[in-house]
């Protein structure tokens, strides 16, 4: 099991421009969206890291940007990492898909697409998961549904 400093040192070698926010509960790393997939590949294949278990993948709408958040775990070492990437293009947000690395990501990404409208490049089946095709993206902060959601 590697501690936060050792993990961040290895990741910095792969992606020099990675940002590590201070004072977080788990180790977090923010990478540009172009390096998101390549870093995930390294995280999985590096035998010293072995992040083979994607616990969850989600997104957060910060109104000025979307953040895609992946919680990764290593079954062998039991260290955890939060991989983040920020998307500023609100009209057409897109990022690479992790479904080639983690099969479970296919469905987390479909859920994110359904609820946030973030597209995933090279995804095998980029369709909505829960809602109908003409519904808006409900977890976006500017989503309004006057019939079903009562604003307080």
């Amino acid at each position: 099991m590697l501690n936060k400093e050792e993990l961040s040192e290895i990741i910095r070698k792969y992606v020099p421009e990675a940002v590590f926010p201070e004072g977080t509960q788990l180790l977090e790393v923010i990478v540009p969206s172009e390096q998101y997939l390549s870093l995930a590949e390294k995280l999985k294949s590096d035998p010293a890291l072995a992040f083979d278990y994607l616990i969850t993948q989600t997104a957060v709408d910060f109104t000025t940007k979307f953040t895609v958040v992946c919680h990764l775990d290593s079954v062998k070492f039991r260290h955890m990492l939060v991989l983040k990437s920020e998307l500023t293009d609100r009209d057409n947000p897109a990022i690479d898909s992790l479904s080639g690395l983690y099969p479970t990501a296919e469905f987390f990404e479909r859920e994110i697409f359904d609820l946030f409208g973030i597209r995933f490049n090279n995804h095998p089946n980029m369709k909505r998961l829960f809602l109908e095709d003409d519904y808006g993206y409900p977890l976006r902060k500017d989503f309004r549904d006057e019939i079903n959601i009562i604003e307080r």
Partner: protein
Amino acid sequence: MSEEIIKDVIVGEHEDYIINMGPQHPSTHGVLRLEVCLKGETVKYLVPHVGYIHRGIEKMCEANTYQQIIHLTDRMDYLSAHMNNEAVCMIVEDAMQVEVPERVKYIRTILDELNRIASHQLWWCAFGMDLGALTSFFYGLRDREHILDIFEESFGSRLLHSFVCPGGLMHDVHPNFQKRTKEFVKYFKTKLPEYDQLLTGNIIFQNRAIGIGHMSRETAIGFGVTGPSGRGSNFSCDVRKIAPYGAYDKVQFNEILEPGCDVFARYKVRMAEMWESLSIIEQLIDNIPEGDYTAKMKPIIKLPAGEYFRRVETARGELAVYVVSDGNKSPYRMKFRTPNFSNLFVMNEIASGYKIADLIAISGSLDLVIPDIDR
């Protein structure tokens, strides 16, 4: 893809046949539709269609306070209601750095295990019924009633208790709680061997379970299949061992791992887990410390701005809660990583190549609760 195949069927060039299982099929245990492509009786592939019971719990959380959110989490996995409640409580306690009293930790852990047994009992009886053994349904429900009575006496509700609140418990447990729980443990120890006699050793049951629905360890990790389903594939994923919470660091118990990877292995994990849960309850029930049933909490809970993450082990696997707070009394974003979501989507992988009758056994062995998938 499916449209093309339907056309083919009309033309009659292929023997593929699409059949919709659900959303009102009894063996899906809820509103889930499986679009199954068959060649003869063999499943070629299947596509799960979800969303029939999507209530937008994550969106609702953004408009509610943390005390209110606890009552929403009951409605996700209603058979592990207590663990879902506990996950939200613990994330609030973590963020506000509240130390809960020892008494609360013990009671919560006992309730976790009672809830786990109740859930596994219901799974056992429904699984037997899926495979045509109706007697198991009566046996399981008979014994589950004893746990629900304990719950009813202490919380006033049987299924969705919402008994825990940030900082502790809503109120203290009923004075009879210890006595009745001990009675139940004693009673259920005589009844569990009956389960084995009825189903486990039954040759008809074994023929339908052994060697069916093979899920390798790599598949389990890749698809994030946790809980008893993952441990039936030798994937060590018990959060109670990885990151102990409550009183789990004070008890001795084994993480049940089975290398069988098939339906029967997942069955055996759950049967063994009931014994482990009984042993955990026995170790704790006589040692519940005296003290307050809740820590002092402010009436209005506001989490400090930041991000929080917490994992608990429900009866079906790993529930992870991820909260982004901006310092207000409701979360900015709340994400539930529910175990059934990941457990469902492995079905195509493990059911392809088996007969359609085995599909019922496979979906039964994954122990799906549909509202937990849709949220």
